[in-house]
């Protein structure tokens, strides 16, 4: 018997047992679709997190008091600047603010205007400048929820003894920027200090860039600097340094996504995998036994029947894996993660207002196919072997 003839009967067998094949492919979709979607989102997020660590500063310096992070007093910048190997120090203010009657949460980031380029492709409109009105660049979710557009005025949403100002939206982050822009407000350092009612010079952290090769030496020098006195007189503030390497080691290595939501998925694989195994090995078994007995009576050998079962399993697994991949792509690319993004990304609604980060790669698809083949193949080949070793006369009963 030719190999192609065996392949042909294996493929025909998929259509011969339609209910079995349909249940099998649907069960594979139930396993693989959540896996590929969640892994795609996770790897997309990982790629953007890597960009965040790689393209940020070499060192992040914050204050530490009572074991907690606290703002740095005004003289911290000058102390760090004078260290050998430091090329640039940028003070930054980051904090949480609430806007609108629904107290919409937002992350406010203030940077010196000198750090801003003349134009940025991630911002529609202008970048903020210092002036009599607070100028803000708003994230996509905030803009949508608060119905803000370029030119919108925001009444004072903070308290400052020296007076509050109106704020004007001068720019909006574009939807294809990373998800962290969704609830972000970008403004100038002095505006941020005024919003948080802090004196000039206070920063929540310092971004430090170093000469190549000096990162560790500078980090060491900063931690050795004498403690700073805080403005409230409640005790010294120590320097706390986070290096780029500290951040990069947090990224999961390769396909090592084994925690969080993936634990739940492994339970799903286990439960549905058993069901698939039962379906492929049990459903329509009597009919399949008779079919295999007829083939045996026609002169087929056991190994040829097993090969036929393998071809059938490959076809079902391939169909399940490819359909799951294409559905995952439609869900993430065309539907922009409708529903799923709100579940797995905190602070995101059912319909995200930004482009959901995801990365669909060939290796998870290949793994999905292998997993599907192991489950389907085990059930099919086992049941085929049981039927093939029985005498045709008994199997046909």
């Amino acid at each position, binding site marked *: 018997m030719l190999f192609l003839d065996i392949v042909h009967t294996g493929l025909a067998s998929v259509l011969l047992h339609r209910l079995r094949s349909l249940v099998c492919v649907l069960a594979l979709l139930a396993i693989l679709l959540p896996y590929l979607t969640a892994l795609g989102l996770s790897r997309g997020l990982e790629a953007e*997190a890597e960009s965040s660590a790689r393209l940020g500063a070499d060192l992040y310096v914050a204050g530490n008091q009572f074991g907690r992070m606290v703002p740095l007093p005004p003289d911290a910048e000058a102390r760090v600047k004078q260290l050998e190997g430091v090329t640039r120090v940028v003070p930054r203010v980051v904090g949480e603010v609430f806007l609108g009657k629904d107290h919409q949460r937002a992350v406010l980031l203030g940077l010196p205007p000198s750090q801003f380029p003349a134009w940025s492709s991630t*911002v529609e409109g202008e970048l903020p400048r210092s002036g009599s009105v607070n100028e803000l660049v708003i994230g996509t979710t905030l803009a949508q929820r608060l119905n803000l557009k370029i030119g919108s005025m925001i009444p004072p949403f903070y308290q400052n003894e020296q007076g509050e100002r109106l704020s004007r939206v001068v720019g909006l982050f574009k939807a294809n920027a990373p998800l962290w822009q969704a609830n972000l407000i970008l403004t100038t350092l002095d505006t941020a200090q005024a919003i948080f009612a802090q004196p000039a010079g206070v920063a929540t952290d310092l971004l430090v860039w170093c000469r190549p090769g000096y990162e560790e030496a500078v980090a060491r020098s900063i931690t050795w600097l004498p403690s700073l006195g805080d403005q409230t007189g409640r005790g010294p503030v120590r320097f706390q340094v986070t290096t780029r390497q500290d*951040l990069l080691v947090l990224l999961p290595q390769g396909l090592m996504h084994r925690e969080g939501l993936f634990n739940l998925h492994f339970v799903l694989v286990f439960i549905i995998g058993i069901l698939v195994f039962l379906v492929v090995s049990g459903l329509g078994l009597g009919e399949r036994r008779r079919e295999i007995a007829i083939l045996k009576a026609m002169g087929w050998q056991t190994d040829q029947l097993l090969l036929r079962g393998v071809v059938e399993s490959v076809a079902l697994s391939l169909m399940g894996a490819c359909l799951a991949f294409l559905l995952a792509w439609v869900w993430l690319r065309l539907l922009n993660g409708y529903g799923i993004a709100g579940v797995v990304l*905190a602070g995101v609604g059912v319909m995200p207002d930004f482009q959901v980060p995801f990365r669909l790669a060939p290796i998870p698809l290949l793994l999905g196919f292998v997993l599907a083949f192991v489950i389907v193949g085990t059930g099919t080949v086992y049941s085929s072997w049981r039927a093939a070793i029985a005498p045709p006369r008994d199997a046909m009963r």
Partner: protein
Amino acid sequence: MDARGVRLLLVLLMLVGVTAGVLFFEARQESVRQTQAEEFQRLVGGMGFGPASDWEDCPFSFDPRLGGSCGLNSGPLPGGSCFCPRHAESIFSYPALQPQHYPAQEGSSQ
């Protein structure tokens, strides 16, 4: 080979072809996405890292640079990380930030 087998074979080949096309399309889109991410990170000096778009309850889920660990994580207890609503179903888990410690110099006034 009868028509049924051929039809199924064609369907399978079409599925594989479309899947390969999508993979190729996504590989091309990746560079566009990466450029946008890089532009944003250069503008803000590195902001955001985790699976959260705000820092309600857990700044660590937004960016570990803003909070070195999750304040609601009761890790030593079995399932302790689930006490943080941001971590119970996290799609992108990472351990607490552990900055390197540099032994203090003799005579330093730390």
